[in-house]
């Protein structure tokens, strides 16, 4: 049964991809949605088994690579961690499949789209259920590939193609670190299976390595290299540039891949490797710092963007930062909890924005929307729910998970912890502002679109609203219901078992009351602030931005990361390539090599040619010259 979860999406993908033309658009849509939904139901059942019966299993499907001491299997590992991921992946995927039937109804390539979605689901499941690092890497690259296909799904758009390649290459940079991490693990442990590596970890915890001339603790290096991979996939600062561009893909893709599942793979990796990370306080601090920098950076950029999807994309980036700094302060379970709740409310927000875009006939600029909340009542409600959950409004899911992150950072009790908590609170405030800005600009105020009349905006069909409804249930209740299970520290029952390792048990104290109330208060007062800024007094934001023009430009241009990378990496490698080709290969190697030799010989033979003049007196003169030289030599000798 467990294998069905894994292979149903693959079967769906193959049928829809290769035979979609024969079975028809509608059938392939239904088929993929049904198979993935079955997979989702089975996953929920497995999670139930794990919760109730502490069910764990490690299935070996087949051997993959067996070379010398390296043994890699195709396998499926079910433990609390992978069971949670299974539910997140398959349930969001199933809803997105269903939603896509409505959203893609005007697209000519439906079977191909559904096949990619299912293939993605399969690759993601391979990633989360692996019992070794190499299969994890297979899933890791597999989801990257599907993401590449889906971002570039509208292949006629030049920008979509560029974004797709960018996503793949930036991820490859991360994978470069990840692969080196795997090599190092194999070098140190002689195996790539989680269980064996995690058992041996204590034995090498004091080992030092000479790496590129530096003496480094082996564990720090492993953690660092793996974290580079995680940064790439989870779009953390420095390697984040692909995620906003990835919004070129269809909106259901953004919801599934670039919000709920694939981008959380980096967080999953760090949590999965908690038995290693626990021994590397240095890199855990790095994880915290990168996490909080990303959280703050992305939130600041989200404040000024005008594309509805890009705002949500930066929001995702920011929330992933929260997850990382939770993991960095050692609260892996809280990171997983936020991953879990985030999947619901962020998918909800993306699908909701898809519904808005649908209503405005593919308009994504929030300055060209406004005042339509009466026309889109359901979408409006769902978006409000998503926003409340995201901002951490009391009793909704984000409230439990995000506040828990800030609390644990505070309870960590060291400098990084306090600092992270402070940044976390401030970012939560920014989050609330930009989220409400999105809502107010999209649904309230005057109607600003000149191309479509307000009467023409319409509510989406039921097939799109149903997934929104189900996700909003998740966004409301998933925090409240699963809080005790995921991060409960009162009951003594540890849901995560051996899948997450805590070297020291997490602090079970409570932070002071004022601290607990701070974030919810900020979140609450941000609503009227945002309302005032973006509905009541619209001149104010404009005047603020015109006063602080440099800062505003800095934010609008996303801190100039893209421009910087363009100069440092892209232009320079193109120039270097051209130089190596034209100058090194052309002028030097060919010039002195084959071309040089042949032209040299040609010149010599041309010179030698001239001696064969055919004039007797010249020959006689040369003979005389030679004879006298010989004579001279003999006399001197």
């Amino acid at each position, binding site marked *: 049964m467990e294998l069905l979860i894994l292979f149903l999406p693959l079967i769906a993908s193959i049928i829809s991809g290769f035979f979609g033309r024969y079975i028809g658009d509608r059938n392939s849509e239904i088929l993929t949605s049904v198979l993935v939904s079955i997979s989702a139901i089975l996953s929920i059942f497995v999670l139930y088994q794990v919760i109730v019966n502490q069910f764990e299993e490690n299935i070996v499907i087949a051997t993959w690579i067996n070379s010398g001491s390296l043994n890699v299997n195709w396998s499926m590992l079910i433990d609390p961690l992978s069971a949670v991921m299974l539910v997140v992946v398959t349930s969001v995927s199933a809803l997105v499949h269903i939603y896509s039937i409505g959203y893609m109804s005007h697209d000519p390539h439906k079977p191909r789209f559904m096949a990619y979605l299912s293939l993605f689901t399969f690759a993601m499941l391979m990633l989360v259920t692996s019992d070794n690092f190499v299969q994890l890497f*297979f899933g890791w690259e597999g989801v990257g590939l599907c993401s590449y296909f889906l971002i570039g799904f509208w*292949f*006629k758009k*030049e920008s979509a193609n560029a974004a797709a390649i960018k996503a793949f290459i930036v991820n490859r940079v991360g994978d470069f670190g990840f692969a080196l991490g795997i*090599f*190092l693990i194999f070098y140190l442990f002689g195996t790539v299976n989680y269980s064996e590596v995690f058992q041996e970890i204590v034995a090498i915890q004091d080992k030092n390595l000479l790496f590129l001339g530096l003496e480094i603790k082996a564990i720090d290096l492993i953690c660092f290299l793996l974290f580079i991979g995680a940064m790439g996939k989870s779009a953390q600062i420095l390697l984040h540039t692909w995620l906003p561009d990835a919004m070129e893909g269809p909106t259901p893709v953004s919801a599934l891949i670039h919000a709920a599942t694939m981008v959380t793979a980096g967080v999953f990796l760090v949590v999965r490797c908690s038995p290693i990370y626990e021994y590397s306080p240095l890199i855990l601090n790095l994880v915290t710092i990168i996490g909080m920098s990303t959280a703050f950076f992305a939130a600041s950029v989200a404040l000024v963007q005008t594309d509805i999807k890009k705002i949500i994309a930066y929001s995702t980036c920011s929330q992933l930062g929260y997850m990382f700094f939770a993991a960095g302060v050692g609260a892996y379970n809280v990171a997983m909890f936020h991953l879990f709740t985030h999947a619901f409310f962020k998918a909800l927000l993306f699908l909701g924005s898809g519904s808005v875009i649908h209503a405005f006939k593919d308009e994504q600029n929030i300055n060209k929307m406004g005042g339509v909340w009466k026309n889109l009542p359901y979408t409006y409600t769902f978006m409000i729910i998503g926003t409340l959950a995201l901002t951490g409004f009391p009793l909704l899911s984000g409230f439990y998970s995000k506040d828990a992150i800030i609390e644990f950072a505070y309870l960590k009790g060291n400098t990084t912890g306090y600092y992270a908590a402070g940044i976390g609170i401030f970012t939560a405030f920014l989050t609330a502002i930009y989220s409400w800005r999105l809502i107010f600009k999209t649904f309230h105020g005057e109607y600003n679109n000149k191309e479509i009349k307000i009467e023409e905006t319409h509510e989406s069909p039921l097939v799109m609203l149903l997934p929104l409804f189900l996700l909003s249930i998740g966004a409301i209740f998933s925090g409240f219901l699963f809080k005790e299970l995921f991060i409960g520290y009162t009951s003594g029952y540890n849901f995560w078992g051996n899948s997450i390792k805590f070297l020291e048990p997490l602090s079970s104290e409570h932070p002071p009351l004022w601290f607990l109330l701070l974030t919810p208060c900020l979140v609450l007062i941000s609503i009227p602030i945002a309302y005032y800024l973006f509905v009541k007094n619209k001149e104010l934001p404009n005047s603020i931005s015109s006063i602080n023009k440099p800062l505003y430009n800095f934010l609008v241009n996303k801190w100039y990361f893209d421009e910087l990378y363009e100069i440092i990496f892209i232009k320079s490698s193109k120039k270097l*390539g051209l130089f190596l080709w034209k100058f090194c290969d052309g002028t030097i190697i060919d010039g002195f090599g084959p071309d040089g030799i042949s032209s040299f010989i040609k010149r010599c033979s041309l010179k030698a040619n001239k001696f064969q003049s055919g004039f007797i007196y010249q020959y006689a003169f040369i003979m005389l010259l030679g004879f006298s030289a010989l004579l001279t030599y003999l006399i001197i000798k």
Partner: protein
Amino acid sequence: MNFPILTSLILLPTIGALFLFFTKDKSESNLTAKYVALFTTVVNFLISIYLWISFDQSTSSFQFIEDRAWIDGFINYKVGIDGISILFIILTTFITPLCIISVNNSVKNRLRDFLIAILIMESFMIGVFCALDLVVFYLFFEAGLIPMFLIIGIWGGSKRVYSAFKFFLYTLLGSVLMLVAIISIYWITGTTDVVKLYELGIDVKYQNLLWLAFFSSFAVKTPMWPVHTWLPDAHVEAPTAGSVLLAAILLKMAGYGFIRFSLGLFPIASDVFTPLIYTLSVIAIIFTSLIALMQEDMKKLIAYSSVAHMGFVTLGIFTLQQQGIEGSIIQMISHGLVSAALFLTVGVIYDRMHSRLISTYGGLVSVIPKYSILFMLFALASLGLPGTSGFVGEFLILMGAFKDNFLVAVMASIGVILGAAYILWLYKRVVFGKLINEDLKKILDLNKSEYFILSCLAAPILFFGFYPDPLINTIEVSVTDLINMNTTNLASK
């Protein structure tokens, strides 16, 4: 002695070629000529598969040995195979029939002579991979150049003469030194029999020079940086089938030579020169990947990518790690399939549009979807996506390299990033985007034979990506023994 199965493998294509030679060259008999050539090579493929099945994987000693006196007391015609050679033989017999099917449109005149050249070349290539005598190896190794030289020089593009001579000049330079080395080995040890030489060993004081002489030949053929500049020119001018044979099989002779002779005969010198190989390999991987990024000609781009991929191969061989050498062999097989497939895919659109320039194309996916899917698969295999054979090879090589030298592994891994960049960018510019060129709208999708050839290549690429066991099991024992032999030799130094 049993039935001489290896000799028949070597001779069968030549017999087919002779048969063609004595048929009349009428225009309508072209098709017959093709059938004859196809029949011969398919039979050869089946024989080699039989060979693989009856091959004993549990021993590293040579099997199916034939030993006949040729020049008494001096050279024996000795052939035999172990786990490493058999894979290359199968690669040769597998690629050749596909090449013959593919020559439909690309070769307009003198098709019969073209087929004769291909058949003769198959004979020589198989000879290279099973020769167990240095002189016999040398003869096959060098003779293999002649058909290739002719294929480029007669059926090539506009700059064919320049390319053919460049190709010849480079390879000749290396070969002469190797010949000298072989003669000196005979003087030193009194034999050119590889098996005997493995047992005898060669005196340490001669090893360095001899190693360098062999290296100069193999480095040109691999090709390693900086003696690689003949390859892009040769590929660009060669007809599609020629490029396929060149990339898929000819380049593998050198990698095979490194394993069989450089490591096998000169273990101590190999150890001494490992840093040299590492440096050149890393340079090849990074430099040629960057160069590939900037190419405007599709064939040149793939040619440069071949140099980079072969850089991984040489890197892996000299790690002297189980994973490294096995990875190298798998990478060679995989590159044989993938580069053949990529040259064929370029050939397909070249036949239709008569342009190799990337800028001619764009937006192909909306007119020729089948083609685009297969092209994507090969591009992914080339960039080493897990699930394709390219990944298994590259990953094992880097794993082996990492065990031996961190820095080298880190630098070589950068090549993996660049590898994704150039091939995806190529694909984007050719297949995706808007269809601007009006002529492209009439372009036809793959015909049956093209579809068949490309599927034949796609199947093993995927199969060995998910299940490389058949390959690894075949070479495992031979590689282990080779490493053991080398480590004992090094220890006794």
